[in-house]
């Protein structure tokens, strides 16, 4: 078991002017499940591959435990990786695939077989040990890839979107299996995904990246409740947070025909005459009778059983703005209705329009 530390780790591809990973500072604690998340091209996979030793570190350092592994070849780092496409050796059986690393390490045959069997039991792979990968289903292949990592009992697990090739149902199942398994084994895990739901459900902590730059690190709850900038606010949460420009007013910001109070300090800190306001769909109060708040025309209501999501639009300062609000699944306004929306007090996020940084530092309930 070990910690993982990125110290200003940078990866600049030859011929490119912008680093794929830009001065990444990140500490992963011993036994922690850390998720790297971000849109495609944000540098999350590159960061993971730098940790694996498959990608050169142009600047900065990477440490596993106290060891500086920056220039160490992958095999000396004591890590195991699960690849997006599993990368199973097609000419070897499941048992041989799982035992390959041990064989190279010179572990004797009996112990090898015992450790492979142990891992296979953990993953329900026992009946398939003699099969070749092509005779396995996608989910089974994914488990073999996991098993290959587990068998080695490495210091760190690296997982590069291991669920992206599974169908939706299997993905949800495997998600829980992986989180409970890594926690049971207590091995430090760095997990890459582009799916923020996966990140929220699996991670002890989440690191959000964009364009090679770390945006925010925190617990799922932290990221959801206190996004530090507009990007994190919009990226974490589904449906995404409503974000729009609102004019400053005396003691707060204008929200339709009402004024949402905002701390003096926050308002003063904002540059310009407007701020970017963020309200999560579940923090929007929908009123069909009231006249307070933002007048919205309902375009569509998505029913999800217990809940529904109301999609509507309004005009703010002459600009069409789309708004999403969570509504009750049984009684809700219908498409074409006009409603008035107000935010739940204490659940309004405010960001500087220019820098995108958060203005209010904690939501007071």
């Amino acid at each position: 078991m070990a910690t993982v530390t990125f110290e200003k780790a940078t990866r600049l591809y030859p011929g490119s002017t912008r680093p794929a990973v830009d001065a990444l500072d990140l500490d992963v604690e011993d036994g922690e499940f850390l998720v790297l998340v971000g849109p495609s091209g944000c540098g999350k996979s590159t960061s993971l591959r730098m940790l694996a030793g498959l990608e050169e570190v142009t600047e900065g350092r990477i440490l596993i435990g106290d060891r500086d592994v920056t220039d160490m070849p992958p095999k000396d780092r004591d890590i195991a990786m699960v690849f997006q496409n599993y990368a199973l050796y097609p000419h070897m059986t499941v048992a041989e695939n799982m035992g390959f690393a041990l064989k190279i390490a010179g572990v004797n045959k009996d112990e090898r077989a015992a450790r492979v069997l142990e891992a296979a039991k953990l993953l329900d792979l026992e009946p398939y040990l003699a099969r070749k990968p092509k005779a396995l289903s996608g989910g089974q292949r994914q488990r073999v890839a996991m098993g290959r990592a587990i068998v080695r009992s490495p210091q760190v697990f690296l997982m590069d979107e291991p669920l992206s090739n599974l169908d939706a149902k299997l993905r949800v199942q495997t998600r829980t299996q992986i989180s409970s398994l890594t926690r049971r084994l207590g091995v430090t895990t760095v997990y890459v995904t582009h799916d923020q739901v996966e990140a929220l459900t699996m991670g002890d902590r989440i690191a959000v990246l964009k364009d090679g730059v770390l945006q925010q690190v925190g617990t799922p709850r932290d990221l959801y409740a206190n996004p530090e900038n507009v990007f994190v606010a919009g990226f974490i949460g589904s449906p995404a947070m409503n974000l729009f420009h609102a004019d400053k007013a005396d003691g707060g910001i204008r929200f339709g025909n009402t004024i949402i109070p905002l701390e003096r300090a926050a308002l003063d800190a904002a540059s310009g005459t407007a701020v970017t306001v963020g309200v999560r769909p579940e923090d929007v109060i929908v009123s069909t009778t009231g006249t307070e708040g933002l007048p919205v025309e309902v375009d569509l209501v998505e029913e999800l059983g217990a809940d529904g999501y109301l999609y509507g639009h309004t005009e703010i300062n002459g600009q069409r703005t789309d708004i999403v609000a969570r509504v009750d699944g049984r009684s809700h306004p219908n498409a074409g209705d006009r409603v008035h929306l107000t935010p739940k007090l204490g659940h309004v996020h405010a960001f500087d329009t220019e820098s995108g940084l958060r203005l209010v530092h904690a939501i007071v309930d």
Partner: protein
Amino acid sequence: MTAPAGIVTAKRGAAGRILDFFGRGVVNIVLVIVAVFWLVPSIGLALSSLRNSVDNSQTGWWTVFTRPAQLTVDNYTNLLSNSQFMGSFVNTIAITLPATAAVVIIGSLAGYAFAWIRFPGRDWLLVAVIVLLAVPLQVSLIPIAKLYGSIGLFGSILGVIIFHTAYGLPFAIFLLRNFFTQVPGELLEAARLDGASEWRIFSRIILPLGMPAIASLAIFQFLWVWNDMLVALIFTNATSQPITVAIQSQLRQFGANIDILSAGAFLSMIIPLIVFFAFQRYFVSALLAGSTK
């Protein structure tokens, strides 16, 4: 729902049968005709080699089917006791096996390096190798004959081996390099993380997965060298000549010594066939199935 579905199936069945006939039936017939066409001379040769010279000079080989009594293995017993022929047969083996092994070994090592190891000048070196493919063998016969003469390789088996190896390598490297690049990079990365050295990745991952290409290459090179006469005719002498040259030197007018020729030719033909059928099982596509996704 059932009835329309039935009609559709029936229509498709009729059209399908026609398509099947053209698609498979005609192709099969053509294949059989071509096969027979190609097999007749070989069968003729095989049967001639089992008849004595008198029969061969008086009647055609097809009379065997009506008079099986003329079959004899005398030609082969004569051939086996003919030291010149058997010596050239051994020479052929002594040339072909090393020339094939060298091309396969060097070609696969170089192919791996060109495909997966980064080194300065790699791409230019590969271009140079591919350019070598365009050099016809004939243009280098005289310079190399001169070179061999000055370093004492002329007339030796080693000289022929080196020549065939050199001319087999550009294609071997090109073919194997292209095949090896098809192996998903993730597999090699996984092996690297598993602690495999470069050599182990080559021997445990690349070689087994490259078997179809390596087997085809081995067969092509084997057949090429085994059947080669031009190179051998120029670079060998009476003691180092392979069987192709020996057979050619035995040719007389009107097939006067068909008894020894037919048996020798058939012997030189049967070995490549054995090699082909032995390696045939490696020609399996989709060897990579199941590695990713």
